[in-house]
């Protein structure tokens, strides 16, 4: 490039023109003093306690901790979803017998229905007992 510049008048002119423009630009740099009110106004406007109140969440170091806690949270969600899937799968399980006759299916349905209603009966019994106990406790307290 240097060799070319030495021999090419057009390029020499172009380079010198660019250099002159650059000189003019550099000489055109201004020095202006910012008014004092800038700092005053900024300091009056900003909320100086902005980061004091929430130092724990705004500080970069604690931020990292929050970020590292997020995957754990997501992992928990993942486990919950998998558990729910397994539960649904188990509930929808059919017996390994390949073929059912219609009455067999009905019998199975009945059996399943009973299995499902039984826990509800137990739950209502337990609830009633608890309510009775609470009532008796209330009576004692009132006395």
């Amino acid at each position: 490039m240097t060799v070319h510049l030495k021999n090419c008048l057009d390029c020499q002119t172009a380079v010198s023109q660019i250099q002159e423009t650059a000189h003019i630009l550099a000489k055109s740099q201004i020095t202006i003093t910012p008014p004092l009110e800038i700092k005053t106004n900024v300091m009056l406007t900003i909320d100086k306690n902005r980061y004091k109140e929430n130092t724990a969440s705004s500080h970069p170091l604690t931020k990292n901790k929050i970020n590292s806690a997020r995957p754990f949270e997501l992992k928990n969600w993942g486990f919950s979803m998998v558990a729910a899937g397994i539960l649904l799968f188990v509930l929808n399980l059919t017996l390994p017998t390949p073929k059912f006759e219609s009455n067999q299916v009905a019998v199975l349905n009945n059996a399943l229905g009973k299995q499902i209603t039984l826990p509800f009966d137990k739950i209502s019994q337990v609830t009633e007992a608890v309510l009775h106990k609470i009532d008796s406790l209330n009576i004692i307290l009132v006395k």
Partner: protein
Amino acid sequence: LKKNISDANLPLTYNQITIRLKGGKGGDGYLQDEELIKRILQGDGERYGDIVERYQAGLYRTAYYYTQNIEDARDITQEIFIKAYNSLTGFNQTSAFSTWLYRITVNHCLDWCRKKKPIYVETTCLDNLRNEEGSPEDSILQQEIASEVQEAVASLPEIYSTVLILYYFEDFSPQQIAEILDTPKRTVETRLFRARKMLRGKLYSSSDGGELYDLLPKPGQLAQLR
């Protein structure tokens, strides 16, 4: 070329001052930007005053180059500082704080330019120009040139005016400009080259009898002004 200019006993610009201050580690009470930011984020909001003091000259000057008037430059500078304070948590320290702050500045100034065109050109606010030597006549001439150059720079498409402002007036390197504008360094260099060419076309547009043609020094005459 830039090195020669900076060696010519010219007043120090913000970047040069920062570099010198940073070079003198352990100076009296001088804290690096990152340390100041850390303290502010830990709740010491008063420390933001140090940041404002450190950067207000550079930001105000940059805003002035875009707005061409001191009132708007002042307002914009204040807005930038407030904006930066409110989004300090967004400064992730992957780049220098100055880069991050100037990114906000450039974006804010460009937004301003898109919304509001400058109403008038203010030249009387200039304290002085870079050359402090020479006769009063030279000084006046230089001010006029500077004013015309600023106008010409401001009239360029924003991608070109921005690189010129950051490179020539704020003394950022192409690499730093690339970080501020989030563009490749090569693109910045290309824009600089084109911007200089376009600017030259504007300044020396003799064909349309532009007033700048007579005002600006012709090649070789510039040395007499120094």
